[in-house]
């Protein structure tokens, strides 16, 4: 092989290796994260969180404190590559769904953990916010990450079991 074709080969590898690594490690990490989410959600299943502004009157709620949970998450190279292909023709980008789902569930869990560790019984008026962090790479066009923030008011209450 001459120098030119070796260079081309190296260039192709430089693109393919991160994509392959992203696909393999990314899917393992995602799988593990989902498993840990399910486990932790089961532990906190009894802890109520709701988007209602007021708890039911029978709960005799008292005391309040702001609690929040946040997570910054990014998508792997493989998914980004496939997504950029889909964007040519348009349509549903399914692989981003799981990313956002993971992030929202994680943020909600962290909020609940904070409320529970501070001795509260429930979280009311839960709100979820999403913001995109501008990236320093590619003149700010590349997505560095998404931040999901979950916040609400933790209350002490008599929660019926």
């Amino acid at each position, binding site marked *: 092989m001459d120098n030119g074709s070796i260079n081309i080969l190296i260039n192709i590898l430089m693109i393919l290796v991160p994509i392959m690594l992203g696909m393999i490690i990314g899917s393992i990490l995602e799988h593990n994260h989902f498993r840990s989410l399910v486990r932790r959600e089961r532990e906190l299943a009894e802890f109520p969180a709701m988007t209602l502004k007021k708890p039911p009157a029978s709960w005799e709620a008292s005391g*309040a404190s702001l609690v929040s949970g*946040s997570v910054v*998450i990014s998508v792997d190279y493989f998914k980004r590559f496939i997504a950029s292909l889909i964007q040519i023709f348009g349509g549903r980008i399914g692989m981003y769904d799981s990313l956002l789902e993971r992030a929202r569930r994680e943020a909600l869990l962290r909020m609940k953990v904070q409320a529970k560790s501070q001795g509260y019984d429930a979280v009311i008026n839960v709100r979820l916010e999403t913001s995109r962090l501008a990236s320093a*790479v590619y003149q700010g066009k590349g997505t560095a990450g998404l931040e999901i923030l979950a916040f609400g008011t933790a209350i002490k209450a008599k929660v019926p079991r």
Partner: protein
Amino acid sequence: MLILSNTEEIPGKKIVAIYGVVSGSTVRAKHIGRDIMAALKNMVGGELKGYTELLQEARDEAMRRMMQQAEEMGANAVVNVRFSTSSVAQGAAELFAYGTAVGVE
């Protein structure tokens, strides 16, 4: 101790005085060391812990400023707290917290 809440009223307490809108903000730039870690983490996807911490610290700072303002007014609670994030420049983000300072019984 100042009570913070994102509800319009605090359960079990009555609002007796309204002092007005209080806010706090902070602009943070990204840290180069965290940026390099994040770039590596970007390859495989998942949580960028450095950024999560960075934003959490910044939001706490914004909230502290908001609480300070409320205390100066003589309020003992801030209700209806809202957050907003905006990227003002490349690699810098503003975190903003605002609410209504009130007095509760």
